[in-house]
């Protein structure tokens, strides 16, 4: 087969995968089945398109093929015999035409699918995991990292969620406007996970995946226009703008990681910072602050400082204290400890970090030993620092962060 045809199947599938899966789940109520028959359809396309040519509407072609495969599979399953007649009739009536995407109230197809997938009858983590895996193209290990759980645990949660979708017959349809707020926490988490993967890739050679960060910000802008009164939407958009403002300064000429303390702050994007700061004010006004607004406020404190030495660390610590109260995420404590180290000295920060070693949820979090290593180095405890750098190196995912940690470890030997 020609590579071109295989490439076009892949390109079409990447583009159509989310819509294809959502339509199939909507029709058959079974995500496993939808994923299997979607793969079947791609296999047929790989065999046929090089011979017959790429069809005029490749997405509709894939959907029709997948739907036929689903009906075939169900026909083999006696339990579904009665449903087949109905489904077959529906498939025939629809012909080869993909069901028209119901525009609903969400003006972006990707976001519509996110809202469809984030059904409140599923636990929040499962909503987010399914959406990231099926619609954002993240792998189960990448999703697992976003939640700081082992890949096997995440796989288990996904299995359980799929079972509930099928067993309780959770419908996949675009929600009405009044249903959006209940689904918003899941959708925001999805958008933020896409951004985080773009901020520091969980694997691969590059630190940054700018396309993912851009996409997350694009989606958050649409959400903010759609739901201007939702303060956490403003908070998330602010957070991502304020963090993304540092993008160009976060890597050196060869793609190597440059930490906050060493960044050339003249390369920070002032436009992003200004927009982010305006949004933080919105996000913090009119009620108790949410976790995204608080993280945005922390990012704003950093962005406003001329350097690490003049950063208002007391303010950062205070914001982390509030954040710990509203968002019991295990990563808040290590970040707070680092801020305490900047305010009160490395020994104070180290004491806090050492108290976190027993938190199982942080076992795979490479930034915990990395932060410990840094404080031990500053305290001149080189042997212990080396051990901690080695622990961080064993957990780190992308090559740029690995190179940074390895360089620090080597410098310990030289010094």
């Amino acid at each position, binding site marked *: 087969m020609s590579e071109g045809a295989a490439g076009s199947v892949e390109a079409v599938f990447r583009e159509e995968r989310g819509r294809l899966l959502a339509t199939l789940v909507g029709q058959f109520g079974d995500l496993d089945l939808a994923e299997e028959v979607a793969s079947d359809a791609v296999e047929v396309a790989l065999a046929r398109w090089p011979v017959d040519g790429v069809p005029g509407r490749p997405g509709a072609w894939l959907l029709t093929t997948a739907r036929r495969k689903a009906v075939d599979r169900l026909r083999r399953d006696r339990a579904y015999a009665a449903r087949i007649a109905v489904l077959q009739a529906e498939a025939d009536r629809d012909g080869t035409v993909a069901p028209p995407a119901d525009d609903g109230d969400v003006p972006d197809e990707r976001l519509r699918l996110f809202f469809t997938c984030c059904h409140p*009858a599923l636990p929040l983590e499962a909503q987010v995991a399914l959406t990231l895996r099926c619609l954002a193209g993240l792998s189960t290990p990448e999703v697992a990292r976003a939640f700081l759980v082992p890949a096997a645990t995440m796989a288990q949660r996904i299995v359980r969620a799929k079972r509930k979708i099928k067993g*309780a*017959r*959770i*419908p996949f349809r675009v929600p009405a406007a009044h249903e959006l707020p209940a689904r918003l926490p899941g959708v925001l988490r999805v958008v933020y996970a896409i951004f985080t993967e773009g901020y520091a890739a969980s694997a691969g050679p590059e630190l940054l995946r700018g396309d993912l960060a851009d996409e997350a910000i694009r989606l958050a802008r649409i959400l903010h226009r759609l739901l201007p009164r939702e303060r956490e939407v403003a908070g998330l958009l602010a957070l991502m703008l304020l963090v993304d403002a540092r993008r160009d300064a976060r890597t050196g000429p060869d793609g190597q990681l440059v930490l906050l303390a060493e960044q050339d702050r003249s390369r920070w994007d002032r436009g992003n910072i200004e927009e982010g700061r305006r949004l933080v004010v919105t996000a913090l006004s009119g009620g108790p602050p949410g976790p995204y607004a608080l993280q945005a406020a922390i990012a704003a404190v950093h962005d406003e400082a001329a350097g690490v030495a003049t950063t208002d660390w007391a303010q950062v610590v205070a914001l982390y204290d509030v954040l710990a109260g509203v968002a019991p995420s295990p990563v808040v404590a290590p970040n707070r400890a680092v801020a305490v180290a900047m305010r009160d000295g490395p020994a104070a920060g180290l004491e806090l970090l050492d108290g976190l070693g027993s938190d199982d949820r942080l076992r795979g979090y490479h930034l915990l030993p990395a932060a410990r290593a840094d404080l031990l180095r500053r305290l001149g405890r080189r042997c212990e620092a080396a051990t901690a750098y080695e622990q961080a190196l064993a957990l780190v995912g992308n090559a740029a962060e690995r190179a940074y940690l390895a360089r620090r470890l080597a410098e310990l030997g030289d010094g």
Partner: protein
Amino acid sequence: MKYMLLIYGSQDVAPQTAEAVQQVMDEYWAYEKAVADAGVRIASDALQGVETATTVEVRDDGERVVTDGPFAETREILGGYYLLDVPDLDSALDWAARCPGAQHGSRIEVRPVMEFEQP
């Protein structure tokens, strides 16, 4: 698909006055009519109070043990149910939300009914 709407309430939040009891009853009659008119009702009942409950267990050796009281001493008590036949979970949740049992401090657990093939 069949769903069981299990209405759980706490005795603390039971209506106190005759007017309040009558109001809740009126709401239930209206809901009862709504599910019947929509053609989704298979069955529904309210249960007598938990003080009338008796629990039975047959042990492995065949001994029958009868005890006074509910299966578990909890504050949340199963007060009644609706068995509905609706297309999907969203529809079941919509009906649950309309049920008086979802208000006045009580809650509804929605459970899909298992479907078996006839032998």
